């Protein structure tokens, strides 16, 4: 069995979740800070949209944006000398694009349930908005963020359609586990496919239950005493 897809997938999932986490959280924060409920609802709608695009189609769009001949892709190539399409980076790009809405929505919910009085308290104490963000809001939302992170991680780990489109399927470079599974399944190599699926499922299972356990422990530590 070829081990490279496992490594690539692990790397991709690990790196992409970092981006997804920060982008999703950042977007959620921006919307959270908006004054008018109407704008919030509108942005909520917009930022959930990528979810509705079939990944393969989303992959096309990415290709039309980041392809070497397209403005953004050309820009990257010219000024940074990075070719995005067909590089390992593209697997990350695809995973981030596809899992973003999940992270965004979870983070929005998590922020919304933080006690606004805590933030107001920070303000009257003279804490800057940034200090309030990272010392009050983030710690208060941490559980929801973790749970969103798990969803996004799992989705990113299993991402296939967009990845194939923008990153290609180059063995040892961009062939992630889902691509390898697909290839085997399509060819009828069910045994090999089964092994890959097992690994995919195992990684995800370990991460998901691991995080679940961590959250549980964390909860026990800081939860308000039940009255």
């Amino acid at each position: 069995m070829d081990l490279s897809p496992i490594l690539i997938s692990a790397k991709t999932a690990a790196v992409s979740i970092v981006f997804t986490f920060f982008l999703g959280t950042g977007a959620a924060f921006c919307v959270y800070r908006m004054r008018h409920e109407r704008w919030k609802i509108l942005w909520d709608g917009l930022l959930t949209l990528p979810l509705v695009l079939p990944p393969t189609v989303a992959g096309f769009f990415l290709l039309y944006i980041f392809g070497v001949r397209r403005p953004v892709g050309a820009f990257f190539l010219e000024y940074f000398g990075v070719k995005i399409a067909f590089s390992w980076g593209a697997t990350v790009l695809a995973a981030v694009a596809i899992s973003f809405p999940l992270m965004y929505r979870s983070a929005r919910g998590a922020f919304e349930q933080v006690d606004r009085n805590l933030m107001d308290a920070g303000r009257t104490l003279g804490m800057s908005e940034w200090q309030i963000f990272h010392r009050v809001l983030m710690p208060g939302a941490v559980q929801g963020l973790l749970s969103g992170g798990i969803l996004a991680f799992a989705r990113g780990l299993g991402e296939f359609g967009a990845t194939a489109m923008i990153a290609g399927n180059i063995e040892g470079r961009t062939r992630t586990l889902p691509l390898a599974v697909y290839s085997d399944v399509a060819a009828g190599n069910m045994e090999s496919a089964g092994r890959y699926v097992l690994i995919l499922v195992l990684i995800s299972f370990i991460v998901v239950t691991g995080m679940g356990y961590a959250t549980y422990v964390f909860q026990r530590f800081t939860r308000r005493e039940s009255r």
Partner: protein
Amino acid sequence: MLRADISKKLKNFDLDLRFEAEGGCLGILGPSGCGKSMTLKAVAGLVRPDRGQIRRDDRVLFDSGRGIDLPPQKRKVGYLFQHYALFPNMTVAQNIEAGLLRSRQDRSARRERVEKLIRRFRLEGLENQYPTHISGGQQQRTALARIFASDAKCILLDEPFSAMGSYLREEMQMELARMIREFEGCMVLVSHDRDEIYRLCGRTMIMEKGRDVICDQTQVLFDQPRKLAAARLTGCKNISRVQKAGDFQVYADDWNVMLRTGTKVSDTVTHVGIRAHDILPAARGEDVPNRIRVLPAEKVSSPFEWTLIFQNRDHPGAGIWMKSDRSQHQIPDEVTVDPSKILLLEE
């Protein structure tokens, strides 16, 4: 010195009031939901009034006319939240340090300051505890220490004792009284508990449905509430609508009795109030004014006090509350009220 004159549209009613606090502590007494917290939040810069002006000492914090609206960070107004709003993810020491972040001191200076405050607020040994693991009183002290750390020039206290049982409350009030004496800036204390206000505040403002009903020295206000809302909020248990029956005489509709008053009844008087402690048993045959024959009563006792509720025997109506010392053990047949103790009230 704090001076505010603000108005703001709320969901059910409009906030529209003005007040001034100078040294000492101003109490704001009002029923639940009358806009007390809103008022404090407007002063702290957490909600924005629609119109008006707020000044602290010689700084303008807010002026709708001149378009001034300082952010809360710059107002130097400390706010003790109704449930303290301690950061649950920070220890006691870290919570206090949060109040120091504004001043760009270095770590060691900050730490020293925190230690000082911990000693001052008697939080030694709790430095590394999380807020959920300390008692209500300790939480309050931590919240206060945090405000003092932030170098506030004016402190707003929003029902600081509402979260504790009477067991703790008294101790905490004592402690706060000491703090108020030591603090040089001005303080505002919001509460729906008259005892609290009475113990801690030199002046008191009574609020009702977003408006300032009356504002005066606390002592004066409790002795002579003058307004119906003020009487009710300062704990006057017996209140009745009245009709003027003479210069020194009114007819109380709710109890169906005629009462003599100590002061002259002006035309604007609509109600009278009688404190439960001012209802006294009338010895049989003794010649006292405002004598009322009463029906057998409900009786409740607390450790050092007795409460009786009776009705007018001749014309039963609303209940009349009487409180007295534990030492007296007889339920009277007749009660009396000194005319000077009858509070004349306007609506």
